[in-house]
């Protein structure tokens, strides 16, 4: 009893500590943010000039540090500790965002500005047949065709297997088999692309003695694609509420139809995104293509026989030539590759949005 009253007495002043003294605490004026930004930029420039620092990155870094410290100190002094920490966290979040966007924006800018002039109808519709490395002209038709065929073929192989594996793991898998599959899918996610290429090389070309072809490349690409599809689909299927499955089962709908008509449509948006990520990854693969598809300057529309080319391989080859004309072609091809993946992505997102769970009244 005495202990209880003791605690009560002790906690009363503690509560008074955290009680705000006023509902209208002092605030920094709105323009303080702009002023701080300008001020710290000025400090950065001044420090850079006075200190004789050559790198602009150092100037920026100094300015950023000054901004963070000054903002924290100022807010701390005027508005209090909680607001200061809040501002600090917000600043860090923004800084991370900018840091993440910088390489992306710079990459896009570089590719568009260097590759943009080289992309025209002639470039898209002609091969490199008979074009010497230092000559202008030539195009990527053969590589574009190869990439589209190989990626399409790899998707045809990997997406159904990946989807069905994920459906098994989420809807049916219990016990050891499911655990083993999960483990091996995880292992597969970590396979370097060159290893997948070597595997298919030893199996397809050395043991079975079948020649270089786009199909061999597609096999290796599908090995790389499959675990990503399984993983992402699995996560999306897990997000589908069990209530929906029960609602469907309780209507006397068989399990396979429940999965096909209720579970998969509900998760289709996320599944599409996962598949697109996997597709984007394999579209940029070079290593297995070098090993298995070999590369070709001529148009070979037969994906099952003979050497083909592909966009990443084309970029690599052109860059290796080291001539001005070849550099231009490499940048232009890189731009086309990025655009291709982006268009595929947009199309898939469009389909997903069209099919996704509908909201609104």
């Amino acid at each position, binding site marked *: 009893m005495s202990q209880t009253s003791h605690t009560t007495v002790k906690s009363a002043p503690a509560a008074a500590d955290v009680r705000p003294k006023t509902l209208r605490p002092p605030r920094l004026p709105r323009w303080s943010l702009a002023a701080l930004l300008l001020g710290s930029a000025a400090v950065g420039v001044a420090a850079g000039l006075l200190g004789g620092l050559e790198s602009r990155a150092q100037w920026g870094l100094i300015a950023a540090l000054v901004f963070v410290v000054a903002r924290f100190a100022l807010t701390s002094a005027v508005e209090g500790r909680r607001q200061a920490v809040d501002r600090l966290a917000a600043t860090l979040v923004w800084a991370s965002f900018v840091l993440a966007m910088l390489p992306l924006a710079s990459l896009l800018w570089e590719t568009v500005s260097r590759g943009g002039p080289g992309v025209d109808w002639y470039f898209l519709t002609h091969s490199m047949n008979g074009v010497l490395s230092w000559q202008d002209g030539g195009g990527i038709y053969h590589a574009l065709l190869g990439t589209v065929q190989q990626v399409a073929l790899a998707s045809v192989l990997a997406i159904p297997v990946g989807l069905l594996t994920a459906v098994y793991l989420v809807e049916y898998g*219990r016990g050891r088999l499911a655990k083993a599959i999960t483990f091996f899918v995880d292992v597969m996610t970590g396979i370097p692309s060159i290893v997948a290429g070597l595997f298919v090389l030893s199996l397809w070309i050395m043991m079975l003695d079948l020649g270089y072809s786009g199909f061999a490349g597609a096999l290796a690409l599908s090995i790389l694609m499959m675990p990503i599809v399984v993983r992402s689909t699995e996560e999306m299927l897990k997000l589908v*509420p069990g209530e929906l499955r029960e609602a469907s*089962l*309780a*209507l006397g709908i068989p399990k396979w*139809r429940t999965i096909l008509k209720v579970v998969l449509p509900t998760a*289709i948006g996320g599944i599409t995104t996962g598949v697109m990520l996997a597709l984007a990854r394999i579209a940029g693969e070079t290593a297995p293509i070098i090993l298995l598809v070999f590369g070709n300057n001529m148009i070979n529309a037969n994906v099952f026989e003979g050497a083909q080319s592909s966009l990443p391989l084309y970029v690599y080859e052109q860059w290796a030539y080291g001539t001005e004309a070849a550099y231009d072609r490499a940048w232009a091809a890189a731009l086309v590759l990025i655009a291709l993946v982006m268009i595929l992505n947009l199309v898939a997102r469009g389909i997903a949005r069209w099919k996704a769970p*509908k*909201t609104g009244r």
Partner: protein
Amino acid sequence: MAKRIDVSGLTAYYGAHKAIEDITMHVEPGAVTAFIGPSGCGKSTFLRTLNRMHEVTPGGRVEGRVLLDNEDLYGPGVDPVSVRRTIGMVFQRPNPFPTMSIYDNVAAGIRLNGGARRKSEMDELVERNLRGANLWNEVKDRLARPGSGLSGGQQQRLCIARATAVAPDVLLMDEPCSALDPVSTLAIEDLIDKLKSEYTIVIVTHNMQQAARVSDRTAFFNLAAIGQPGKLIEIDDTQQIFSNPSVQATEDYISGRFG
């Protein structure tokens, strides 16, 4: 066609845990039977054993017999899918299929069971069931809109229409009003009153006034202690249970002296 359910010696497990033990009761055809009792006493589990939904839960296992008009639902060769087709269920939280429109939600039971209907027949079926669920007037102008856009009470009535569309013999309702406001609850209760002429209805509820209002018969479940299996204490006419129950525990529970 309303059917009678006879349960004898029913025990249900979740893995090694025994959730309900040795339940024997009869559910009268064409009447409303309410299950009441404290949380965790196995009312919902028992309800789910009646249409073989319990075994959908990993580790779910049932012993004993459930006779639907003298046919054992757990007998050899009985297809659980056919059982669920005959005994429909409405859940606690409204769960319309989010990818489907209002129309498609009602049609889902038929369509996904592979039942082909002509457009006019399907239209008629959807309208009849939405009218049956007292929802038609509210949604007739927006049948193509997604079912998830409706209010909670409307969604629950949509789920009832979806369940009645496959023409079951029995309708199981697992706390169908617990997520709804009083107005929607009243709408559902009116609906239950209307549906009992065609279906055998079993409803689990935490709301004793609701049990007294809508049901003809009431079963009281209880458990001895946490971790112990739930048991059926008594089942009788609702009037009798609420005015003069034969077991002291029932009276205590109903009058709020515990639980």
